[in-house]
């Protein structure tokens, strides 16, 4: 029996009715991308700004005040507490009221004048290793620079480092993170909605009804996945629009390339959702199963953690993660403006993974419905 557009369409309409029967669902499908966009647009940054700093100044001289001033005027540090007793510093770090501690010894200005190496202590709360490592290098730089100007004002720096960042001159993490949100959203929608929709029918028993209807297994698969592919594409346009218009992320590549990559990527996502549905008996199982796939796929994709920081065995493993290839494509299209010409390896991987996963899932689905 050849696939009938009419029958597939009927199923698609039914599916949309089922998903959106509760109007809250439509709202959530919009809130989900917005929450992630806000977080990755505004909240995610490892750069330092106004880090709470506790100062213990035993010296109380012009020189020590200047050093503290150098700290705060950089904008990286903000003094949130001062005291004479080192014990207060310990307690501030313990209670998390300060992340950085600066302790200036009593003989600071004397030793600075004598040029005998005035020791300054920089204490860091390493609990958040990102903040701490950036704070350490900024703090050390400020103190050394202060020492340089205070003791030997005539000496300029021997070597000056001129820094230039390409593609993203302001080093805004936003430009890098916001477009990639689409990768996680599409995967989440595909996995959760597809697997839950099918398992729900099985749980309630209506899958039997579908099976005795004239729908062929192939039509059933198409009709069950098409609505979620459409929702995925809507999320794509929401993310792209918000990224460009609201966050001002540059879009330098071609929309057509982006669309093609997204369709290839959807095949992987829908395939995985379908696969989970063939394994799960209950919606709870499908939900947990989706999470079990979603978390490693996202964490290993380079979305939040750079692939190059992973051990080589895991780097190799990430090649089988469709999210990785999709996010690389999305970022390159947005920021670098590269096209399919230099992104063909990623496109090839996406095609192979999508085709492979989807046909395996379809085969399993057919087998399980016989």
């Amino acid at each position, binding site marked *: 029996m050849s696939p009938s557009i009419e029958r597939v369409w009927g199923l698609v309409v039914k599916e949309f009715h089922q998903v959106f029967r509760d109007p809250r669902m439509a709202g959530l499908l919009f809130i989900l991308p917005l929450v992630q966009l806000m977080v990755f647009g505004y909240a995610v940054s490892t750069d330092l700004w106004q880090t709470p700093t506790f100062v213990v100044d035993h010296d109380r001289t012009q020189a020590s005040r200047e050093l503290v001033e150098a700290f705060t005027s950089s904008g990286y540090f903000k003094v949130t507490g001062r005291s004479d007793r080192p014990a207060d510093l310990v307690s501030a770090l313990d209670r998390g009221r300060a992340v950085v501690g600066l302790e200036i010894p009593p003989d600071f200005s004397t030793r600075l004048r004598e040029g005998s190496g005035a020791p300054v202590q920089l204490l860091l709360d390493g609990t958040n290793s990102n*903040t701490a490592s950036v704070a350490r290098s900024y703090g050390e730089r400020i103190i050394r620079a202060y020492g340089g100007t205070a003791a030997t004002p005539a000496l300029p720096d021997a070597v000056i480092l001129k820094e230039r960042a390409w593609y993203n001159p302001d080093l805004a993490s936003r430009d890098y993170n916001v477009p990639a949100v689409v990768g996680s959203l599409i995967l989440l929608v595909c996995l959760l909605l597809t697997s839950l929709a099918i398992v729900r029918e099985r749980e309630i028993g209506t899958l039997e009804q579908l099976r005795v209807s004239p729908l062929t297994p192939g039509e059933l698969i198409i009709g069950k996945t098409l609505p979620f592919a459409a929702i995925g594409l809507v999320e794509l346009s929401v993310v792209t629009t918000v990224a460009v218009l609201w966050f001002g992320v540059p879009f330098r590549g071609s929309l057509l390339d982006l669309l093609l990559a997204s369709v290839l990527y959807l095949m992987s996502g829908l395939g995985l959702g379908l696969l989970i549905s063939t394994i799960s008996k209950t919606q709870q199982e499908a939900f947990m199963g989706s999470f079990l796939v979603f978390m490693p796929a996202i964490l290993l994709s380079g979305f939040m953690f750079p692939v190059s920081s992973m051990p080589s065995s895991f780097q190799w493993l990430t090649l089988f993660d469709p999210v990785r290839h999709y996010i690389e494509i999305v970022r390159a299209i947005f920021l670098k403006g590269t096209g399919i010409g230099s992104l063909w390896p990623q496109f090839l991987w996406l095609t192979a993974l999508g085709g492979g996963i989807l046909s395996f899932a379809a085969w399993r689905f057919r087998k399980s419905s016989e």
Partner: protein
Amino acid sequence: MSPTRLWAVTRKELIQLRRDTRSLVLAFLLPILLLVLFGYAISWDVDRIETAVLDRDHSARSRDLLSAFWSSGYFELVRRVDSYDAVDALLDRGAVRVVLVIPPDFAEDLDAGRSAEVQALVDGADANTATIALAYAGAIVGSYSRTVRLQGRQLAAPVEVQTRVWFNEDLLSRNMIVPGLVAVIMMIIAAMLTSLTIAREWERGTMEQLASTPVRRSEVVLGKLLPYVAIGLADIVIVSLVGVVLFGVPFRGSPVLLMSLSLAFIIGASGLGIFISAVARSQLLATQLAMVLTFLPAFLLSGFMFAIDVMPPVLRAFSYLIPARYFLVVTRGIFLKGVGIQVLWIQGLLMIGFAAAGVFAAIRVFRKTIQT
């Protein structure tokens, strides 16, 4: 409230869970998988940054500076190039992240006592890595600069910085992540698993059966809560043990304090899950609500991965509403800082408040009556 009826609901839920062995297995597999990923695979620790060099000086000085880069361990020489065009291509393809350019008159300038300029071009697309790489490069160049200036003059450095890092001495992101993971996993297990339980009864029609029994609202809610609280507690023990034994994450505080505050947090999170479930009435909607209300905030806005201090004021204010934020202070405080109740009492009170609010909200919103 009758213990017999409460136990009956719990037993029914346990039987249901036992039949659904795969969900149960997943509830333990997921934390372990996350732990392994965070423990072995992913980190923000930036090292061995792929670096290319365009050395137009080829002097002993330029080699000195470059070897300071390689010996730091943060930069790894991948390619030497001899023109700016090659630099373009390398950065475009993403083959290297940093290109160091040393000008032709580098050594000459230094020997003459003038300043020399070194360029660091970085691929700024990944702003996080780029920021850290530039900070390292600045430190290396700065210390090289000082040795050049002080040579032959035997001048002590005017200021000595003594840096000491507390709580996480080697600045490993693993030590930051694992205690936080305890909180995030609790949100996944406790709130998300429970978010399906009441919606499921509605969907399958068994709510009518439940409604016809003498069991009370509070008994249903608490009875459904208990098995998940037990699973959550077991997960905490597993995650903590694996983190400490396998990944060498320090545990400096009191296990008893961790378990009791965790208990309060799990009760609160499960209550929230049941609340979601009772509001949603369909499992599909419940999962989406649970994502937005529990998992995403706990994962992204609690300080688990991204520091709250650098967030804009609106998001920072919002983060005060996220229970996981406080629980994170508890887990990190107990694991890394070894602080006790005298420091964590505020968070402790908030956990207890969260537990009470969660259970109360669940009981309030849950209705046994069948309406059409």
